[in-house]
Structures are given as C-alpha cells and as structure tokens.
C-alpha cells in the first residue's frame, strides 16, 4: 500500500512539474525534453491503475512518436524559436481563467465517488475483444479521420503550393 501511494505521489509530482516546466522554459528544445518526461510519467499512471496496454501505447505514441514529431517541428523552425516570448494581449485574464477552472475542477474532484481504482488483475484480452468487437466502429472511424488528416498534412507541407 505504502509503495503504491508513494508511486502515485511521485508520479503526480513528476507529471505536474514536468508539464509546468515544459510550458515555462524558454528553450524550445528543453521543452521537448520536459514534455517527453511528462508523457512517461503519465504512462506510469496507466501502469499503476492496471492499464498496461495503455501504458505501452502512451510510451510508444506519445513519448516516442509525438515527441519526435515535435522535435522535428522545432528543428525546422529553429531559427526563430529562441526569441523571448511576449505576454498575450489578454493580460492576466488567461492565468485567472485557467486558475478558476483548476480550482473548480479540483473542488469537483472531492465530489467524485469515494471509490478506489483497481491496481491489478485487468485482463488485456477483454480490452482487445472489446476494441475489435464492440468498439470496432470507433476504430474504423478513427482510421477514417486519420486518412484525411494525413492527406491534409501532406497538402499543407507541399512545397510547390501556390
């Protein structure tokens, strides 16, 4: 028990801090590193609540692919990424707004059922069965969304665009 709790606390702290760090540091390349760490922390959460498949997925997709993609982005636009960032036109309002949402949601978190999460014994087989039977349509849909997204991305980055 203590071990799990400890793991949870460490992961929570890591996730929060890395997220903050990713958004606050000025070096964009550092940001990518922090965010990679953030993704890893989240995958830790998934392992903790006995969702190992998702944990692996998170590591593969986010910590792996997305991070690399972001890194590519930084590299391509590299010349301009070191400029100091200006404040938004909205002033302190965004900070206040996000704080407000945070506070409310945190308050709301106290009203969730006082149950617990299951830490072990989740059959991956059940998930895969469900994914390809009950939620097969969803996956198909996902594929259908990805295809135009792919095409769109290619169109956007095409060199000889008028």
């Amino acid at each position, binding site marked *: 028990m203590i071990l799990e709790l400890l793991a949870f606390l460490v992961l929570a702290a890591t996730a929060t801090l890395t997220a903050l760090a990713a958004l606050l540091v000025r070096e964009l390349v550092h940001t990518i590193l922090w965010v990679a760490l953030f993704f890893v922390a989240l995958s830790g959460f998934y392992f903790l609540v006995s969702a190992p498949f998702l944990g692996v997925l998170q590591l593969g997709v986010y910590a792996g692919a997305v991070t690399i*993609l972001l890194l590519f982005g*930084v590299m391509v636009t590299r010349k*301009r990424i070191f400029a100091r960032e200006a404040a938004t036109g909205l002033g302190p309002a965004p900070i206040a707004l996000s704080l407000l*949402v945070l506070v409310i949601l945190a308050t*709301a978190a106290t009203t969730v059922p006082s*149950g617990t999460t299951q830490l072990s014994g989740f059959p991956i087989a059940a998930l895969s069965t*469900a994914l390809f039977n009950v939620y097969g349509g969803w996956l198909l849909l996902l594929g259908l*969304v990805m295809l135009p997204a792919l095409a769109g991305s290619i169109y956007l980055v095409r060199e000889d665009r008028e």
Partner: protein
Amino acid sequence: MTDLPLAGFVAVSAVLLGIGLFGILTRRNFILLLIAIEVAMNSAILNFVVFGSYWNSISASSVEGQSVAVVLIGLAATEVAVGLAIVLALNRSRGSINVAEATTLRL
C-alpha cells in the same frame, strides 16, 4: 493490497488540465501551443483510464474507459501531425509561427 483512491487521480487530472489551459492561453509559439493542447488532452485521457479502472473495481471487465482512451490517443496523435503541418505551412508563408500574428480568420 488496497487500491488507491479515485479522487487523487481526478485531482491530478484537474491540475494538468489547468496547466494545459494556462499554456493554451498564454503561449504564442505554435509548438508550445500544441504542447499545451497535448497536456490538456492527456489529462482527459488520464481521467478516462482512471475512471475505467474505477468501474473495473466495481464490476469486472469494464473496458469502456480504456477503449475510449485508445481512440483518443490515436486522435491526439493525428492532431499533432496536422498541427505540425500547419506550423510548417505557417512558417513558410509568414516566416513566423507566432499565432497572435495569424489573424486572417478575422472577418
């Protein structure tokens, strides 16, 4: 082995969402904006997974939360891909990836 309380995870998820929103609202660099969006997105996915786990502790083999999370991860990855394509296009056409300068949406 005692399980961890649900509320803790939800609270973390809430905090992450807050951070994500903060980033979305204040960062002007398009890549940072994308990262902030990913943070917010991940907080949502976390919520799904955690609640799925919670339901699983009540009735065995409850897989809805994780299924949705799988789809969402896929979507988020797609979104990053498109987002980065936009970054590239923006960079080429305007020489800047500052979103505050891209105001062609205005009527």
